[in-house]
């Protein structure tokens, strides 16, 4: 019996795909645990870095709580001082940048005032939006969120800071909006926890 040509071609393609899939599976089996470990280490270092700027000795980051019903925030971590008093929250935020989603860690006082933030995973343009990974980039947002709103457009910034974000405005707006949403969420969380203790 003659095997149809279509079956032969299909069989060869299936064989090549199978070999490729098996080898990629093996490579993934080797690299996946290392990638997960890298992510966890980066998260732990990020949490320690942002909590460390609370200005309180012995600041401790509590267990993660998932946040439902918020497009910007994924997880909240309570921060407590050495005596167990509540200092604020760290939120794991998602902003939209030039290259898609940007993950941020942001620490707020219970009033919603941002006191520390750090850019995590992102796909922003090297040399432009990637500048948001520099710790000093977040200086333009720190201290706002309670008495003054978090800047979300270039017009909210003084001229010197506006010049610094030239070429990466979309990144700035994405970061600003995510941080502003986080600030609002912290005030809601604080309102809920106060309500719960009354």
């Amino acid at each position, binding site marked *: 019996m003659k095997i149809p040509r279509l079956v032969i071609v299909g069989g060869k393609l299936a064989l*090549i795909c199978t070999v490729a899939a098996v080898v990629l599976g093996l490579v993934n089996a080797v690299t996946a645990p*290392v*990638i997960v470990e*890298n992510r966890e280490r980066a998260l732990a270092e990020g949490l320690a870095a942002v909590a460390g700027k609370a200005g309180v000795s012995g600041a401790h980051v509590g267990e993660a709580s998932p946040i439902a019903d918020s497009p910007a925030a994924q997880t909240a971590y309570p921060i407590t001082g050495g005596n167990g008093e509540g200092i604020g929250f760290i939120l794991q935020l998602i902003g939209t940048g030039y290259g898609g989603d940007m993950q941020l860690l942001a620490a707020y006082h219970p009033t919603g005032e941002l006191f520390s933030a750090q850019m995590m*995973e992102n796909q922003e343009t*090297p040399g432009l939006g990637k500048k948001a990974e520099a710790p000093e980039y977040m200086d333009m947002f720190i201290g706002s969120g309670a008495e003054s709103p978090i800047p979300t457009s270039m017009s909210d910034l003084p001229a010197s800071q506006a010049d610094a974000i030239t*070429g990466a405005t979309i990144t700035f707006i994405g970061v600003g909006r995510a941080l502003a949403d986080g600030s609002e969420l912290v005030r809601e969380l604080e309102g809920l926890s106060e309500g719960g203790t009354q």
Partner: protein
Amino acid sequence: MSDVVDIRPGAILKNNLWSNNPIFMQILGICSALAVTNLLTNTAIMTLGVTLVTGFSSLTVSLLKKLIPRKVRMIVQTLIIAFYVIIVDLVLKAFLPEISKNLGPYVGLIITNCIIMGRAEAFAQSNGPIVSFWDGITSGLGYMGVLLVMAVFRELLGFGTLFGYQIMPAAFVPWTIMVMPPSAFFLLGLIIWAGKTMMGGEKA
């Protein structure tokens, strides 16, 4: 002019690095040339990835050329290229996470680099595996050379640094245009003009 390709290693090297350079003679791989060349480190890692993917894709295509049905060869070539790019991406994410973070989406975009498919189709499909591997590697090196030259100018004038080390004096005002894609267009145009003028054979 003869259509016979000289497959001696020295001739392939000279051809791919200079007389038939993929960037300034074949005008291939231009998108990534514009995208990644604003920092030398990123350019070096990205072009190393392209070089390895081109070499191993050509080797694999050459080894499998008798097995691959002619009518579906381009699908298989794309699969082979994607296979190597995924491996490069996973290895970078696992063992060089900082570099992977800096390169962002550009690693995945190696798949779309025309040089890789071009060498697979034009050379590996009709030559032996070792010489195809050499052709792929040297094509990648030709691409790497041009992009590194562009990156030197862009990082130096755009940031005042080379490989992140401050080179220009503190009083130097960085040229923001140099870190943006339009500057790569101008530089690439100049490189194509300079390369073709030096060869003297074609109108720039």
